[in-house]
């Protein structure tokens, strides 16, 4: 999938040709009625066409004008349909490859699911699998449907879904028990209980979402549609009554010019691009390898006030790392470093490796050449809570403070004040002290700490500028949590977090009227994921978590919440910007059309022709052409979305008002003038 999400030009033939065909299919009024603005345009276009045909048949003069108006009204409708088709077209390629992974899938259904060792199975089409069926999947088999591993361990290639080629481990129990239909087992076997009804699997839902088949209007889209319909009605009233007012003034306006006036005034630009914006937003999300179960969730993401993030893996690297060596009792820093380096050479834990790395990088220590050959390494054990090395008659140990003290034969009170102070200072700062000793002498303390990911603090600052509060969730004690929270720059933290606490925190925030987003992977996250307004489940997580959330992150990268929020905001912003643009356009259209309609009756109104358009007919035609072409011109913007900057609401608004409000006021004056020059030069009027 990641391969198909690289940007393809909107106007490339591969997208455009099928989209054009789809656009014509969408002209069906029964489909169009869901989009009132464009539906009205279609009705008006049909009306003008009928009158044009009538005039043509009865041999009236001057039919070319109404014919061209009719043509451009139809173009307006087609362009609107085209924008939607293009947006859908970009998703179709992705859906196609997914669907291929699904077709002709066969399943090995266990004949005797109750017998643990009997793997006798019957091969049936995957599409006939029912909820609760138990299947066996062996090496090189494609997993026939979504389910939960109930027995076995296997490595699974999930690249069909995630685009990530490295296989992942799936096993019974724990947080890695969920499997997705369409992925392939590449070693060992799994026994799977099917957890999705036929046609309702994860892949089915993805296909549906990508194709836009199951797309429903989001609440905000509905509210905007109402505004647009209301404006359409207002202009319908203004245009229909204009006929009467004109009659009084002694001008009988033709249906063609009234239709032209109506269609240029109603917000066809935003009306035509509205659904494309929503579809493109979902596609952008899919481009980030996030699947949302509904557009509503994406929109809610734009409104999120509070972000709950797991500490481990999101804010910190997840492993404690050595950050400092604190020598005691006159030992030099480099002596401590070389001793602890020796003791850690064979230590394959992340902590051990980080000690080696720190000693080499910051203290420039390199191990003796023969260090490993003559050394006897003592591995860490839960009983001793020590590890170390015996080399060249030296016995070096590192480990938990009390264990090392026991090793040197001291109790805490007997240790030097300097040592105790160093240990306390590290603990107070939220770190973990690791004592180091050689024989009966304390050498010093290694400061192990959770290392905050680089750049994360800036991201949180950006979120704060957006008005979003970040909350870190961790199992650490409050002291450690507070230290990391302040280092990472989060606004709040939940220490020693239990699933109940998370749920309570979310509920409490929601009572205050805030919208919460969180991500999680474990089964114990499921209640919180379900309670949160935006719950992002990791693809590597359990089935329960994936069911509870309303989005799934295929890359299982929790910081993505930030991108999701941005996409949610972008969708709304694009709608708002194009609505403003659409309405602001009307001013110029009035100045093009009103003088054109009445200059014959009241020559004085010619003064309003500020653009100096050639003739009344060229003015009206140019306005209609501009109105149609602007839809096409804005398709790329609708698909890309208006750029979001985390600068605070007021700055964002003034920027967008300037670009789309003022721009919308000015652009059509220039555009209509240019089109008028072209229309005049071509002599088509």
């Amino acid at each position: 999938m990641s391969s198909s999400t690289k940007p393809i030009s909107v106007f490339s033939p591969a997208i455009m040709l099928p989209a054009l065909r789809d656009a014509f299919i969408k002209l069906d009024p029964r489909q169009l009625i869901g989009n009132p603005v464009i539906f009205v345009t279609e009705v008006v276009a049909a009306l003008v066409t009928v009158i044009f045909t009538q005039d043509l048949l009865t041999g009236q003069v001057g039919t070319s004008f109404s014919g061209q108006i009719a043509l451009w009204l139809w173009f307006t409708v087609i362009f609107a349909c085209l924008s939607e088709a293009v947006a859908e077209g970009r998703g179709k390629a992705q859906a196609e490859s997914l669907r291929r992974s699904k077709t002709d899938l066969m399943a090995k259904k266990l004949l005797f699911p109750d017998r643990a060792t009997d793997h006798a199975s019957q091969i049936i089409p995957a599409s006939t699998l029912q909820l609760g069926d138990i299947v066996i999947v062996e090496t090189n088999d494609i997993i026939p449907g979504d389910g939960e591993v109930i027995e076995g361990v296997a490595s699974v290639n999930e690249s069909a879904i995630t685009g990530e080629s490295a296989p992942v481990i799936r096993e019974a129990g724990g947080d890695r028990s969920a499997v997705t239909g369409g992925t392939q087992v590449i070693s060992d076997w799994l026994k799977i209980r099917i957890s999705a009804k036929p046609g309702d699997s994860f892949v089915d839902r993805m296909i549906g979402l990508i194709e836009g088949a199951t797309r429903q209007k989001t609440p905000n889209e509905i509210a905007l549609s109402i505004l647009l319909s209301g404006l359409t009605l207002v202009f319908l009233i203004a245009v229909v009554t204009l006929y009467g007012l004109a009659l009084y003034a002694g001008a009988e306006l033709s249906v063609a010019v009234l239709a032209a006036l109506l269609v240029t005034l109603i917000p066809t630009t935003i009306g035509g691009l509205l659904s494309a914006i929503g579809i493109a937003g979902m596609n952008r999300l899919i481009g980030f390898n996030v699947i949302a179960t509904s557009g509503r969730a994406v929109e809610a993401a734009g409104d999120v006030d509070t972000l709950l993030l797991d500490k481990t893996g999101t804010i910190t690297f997840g492993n404690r790392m050595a950050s400092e060596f604190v020598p005691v009792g006159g030992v030099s820093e480099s002596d401590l470093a070389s001793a602890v380096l020796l003791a850690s050479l064979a230590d394959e834990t992340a902590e051990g490796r980080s000690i080696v790395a720190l000693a080499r990088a910051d203290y420039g220590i390199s191990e003796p050449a023969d260090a490993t050959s003559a050394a006897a390494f003592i591995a860490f054990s839960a009983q001793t809570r020590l590890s170390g090395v015996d080399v060249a008659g030296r016995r070096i140990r590192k480990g938990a403070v009390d264990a090392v003290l026991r090793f040197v034969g001291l109790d805490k009170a007997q240790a030097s004040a300097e040592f105790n102070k160093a240990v306390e200072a590290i603990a107070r700062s939220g770190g973990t002290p690791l004592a180091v000793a050689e024989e009966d002498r304390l050498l010093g303390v290694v400061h192990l700490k959770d290392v905050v990911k680089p750049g994360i603090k800036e991201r949180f600052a950006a979120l704060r500028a957006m008005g979003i509060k970040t909350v870190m969730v961790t199992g650490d004690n409050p002291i450690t949590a507070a230290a990391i929270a302040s280092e990472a720059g989060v606004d709040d933290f939940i220490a020693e977090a239990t699933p109940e606490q998370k749920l309570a925190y979310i509920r409490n925030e929601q009572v205050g009227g805030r919208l919460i987003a969180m991500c999680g992977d474990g089964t114990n996250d499921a209640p919180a994921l379900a309670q949160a307004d935006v719950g992002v489940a990791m693809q590597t997580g359990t089935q329960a978590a994936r069911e509870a959330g309303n989005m799934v992150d295929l890359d299982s990268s929790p910081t993505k919440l930030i991108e999701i929020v941005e996409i949610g905001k972008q969708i709304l912003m694009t709608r708002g910007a194009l609505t403003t643009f659409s309405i602001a356009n009307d001013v110029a259209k009035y100045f093009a059309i009103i003088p054109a309609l009445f200059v014959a009756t009241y020559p004085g109104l010619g003064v309003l022709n500020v653009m100096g358009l050639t003739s009344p007919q060229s003015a009206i035609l140019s306005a209609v052409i501009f109105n149609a072409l602007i839809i096409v011109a804005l398709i790329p913007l609708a698909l890309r979305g208006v750029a979001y900057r985390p600068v605070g609401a007021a700055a964002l608004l003034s920027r967008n008002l300037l670009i789309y409000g003022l721009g919308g006021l000015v652009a059509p004056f220039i555009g209509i003038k240019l089109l008028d020059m072209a229309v005049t030069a071509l002599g088509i009027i």
Partner: protein
Amino acid sequence: MTFSGWLQIALVLIAVLALAKPLGLYMARVFAGERTWLSPIVHPIETGFYRLAGLRADQEQGWLAYAFGVLAFSFAGFLAMFAILRLQGFLPFNPQGFGELAPDLAFNTAVSFVTNTNWQNYGGETTMSHFSQMAGLTVQNFLSAATGMAVAIAVTRAFMRSGATAVGNFWVDMTRATLYVLLPLAIVVAIGFVALGLPQSMDASFAATTLEGTQQTIAIGPVASQEAIKQLGTNGGGFFNTNAAHPFENPNAFANYLNIIAMLSISTALVYAFGQLVGNRRQGWALIAVTGVLLLVGTGAIYWAETSGNPLLHAVGVDPALGNMEGKEVRFGQAMTALYAAVTTGLSDGGVNAMHSSLTPLGGMVPMFLIQLGEVLPGGVGSGLYGMLVFAILAVFVAGLMVGRTPEFLGKKIEAREMKLAMLAILILPLVILGFTAVSMVAPFGLSAITTPGPHGLSEILYAYSSAAGNNGSAFGGLSGNTPWYNTTLAIAMLLGRFAYIVPVLAIAGSLAAKPRLPGSSGTFPTDRPLFVGLLIGIILIMGGLQFFPALALGPVVEHFAMLAGQSF
């Protein structure tokens, strides 16, 4: 335009702004049910009314019951008024012995006063008995204004509450608006008017001997008291046919100042009270700023157009320095005429101190446009505030989208239901104004009332329906509106402009009251800053402009260019 002219305009507006805070705070206390310094006198009367009506003041209503209260009360008021007018001949205090009004005129007049429009298709001093003026018109001047305030307060409560089903009690709000606000202020202003020379008498007229020695009958009556509530309640229905241009309604420059200040005071203070009640005074000031800017621009436009005068008259030797003085009173001058015209139309008052029909084409277009903007500058008492809030909801919706959040206003999310209701309310004005105007422009029964053909005739009719639907009540003049067609359709326009607006607005109140009040964050767009003021002004102008530009182009705009080209109508 002169410096002293602008100085006068500035002084009047500063006086209004200075009054906004104390009066606003007072009203906020009144409608929150708190004690005020008038309580010792008024509270016993208030509770007496409740006891009489068997009403419990602490029992609140949902929006539907509230709306029903508004409609029922207004309908009862209409019936009473209609009966008084139809039975005028049999009723007391009728020194001139006027007979009953024709059914269509009585209908029109009753609707007009119940809807706070005060469109007058009759001449006051030649049609109405003192009883009709006092028991009919003046009573409705109070009650229709109080009704508007009650609705505005109900909408305000929707923003104050969270998860509530009730928006207040209409009967209580209406009673308090009358007893605590309108009545005391009317007494003060009426005394002020008497001091400035307005008559207050139960006599019908007195006879005077003119310089030529002939006898003249001069109509008087209880003018000062009616004038006070006419302005305070933004009613605008004058005692005399020529309204505030009449020397007994508006005898001098100081009376004119007081007229304008009285008109603006409650509406402006109510906006302040809104800010106070929702806990954001800056919001109140922001909305006042919107009205202030638009009113100043409107005043400036009229002032400029009128002082520029009419080149056709200059050509025949009229001193251009005077500007266009046709239809104006010299005791007010250009500046105060411009301010009065802008305020009375921006405000849905409808009283006039000059003939709007005699203004220059552009000078006349501005008042008409101010009405068409929806009577929100600052609008009629109450109706201005809730009208402005509908526009604010629209502005917030567009702004909210542009900052990437579900739009919210004062912590209330604006969603599909609010948009639907707001659009319903917005649609009323163009539908009624343009619809009736278009029919009148082509039908013989419509055309027959036009006294001036050509674009000016269109302006006359467009102004009439704008005034009716906007519940303004001012007349352009020149239209012979006392015909069955105009009496009936103008009345329908008034009814729709009032109640087809109030019902969706109260439904919005109900919907908002039920929503939680969300705390703001830096991602929420602030609605109490200059940026929002600018946006709201833009939305009001664009909505109004886009709806009425074609109609205005065929009326005053054409006339303006024709005037410049040397043609008059």
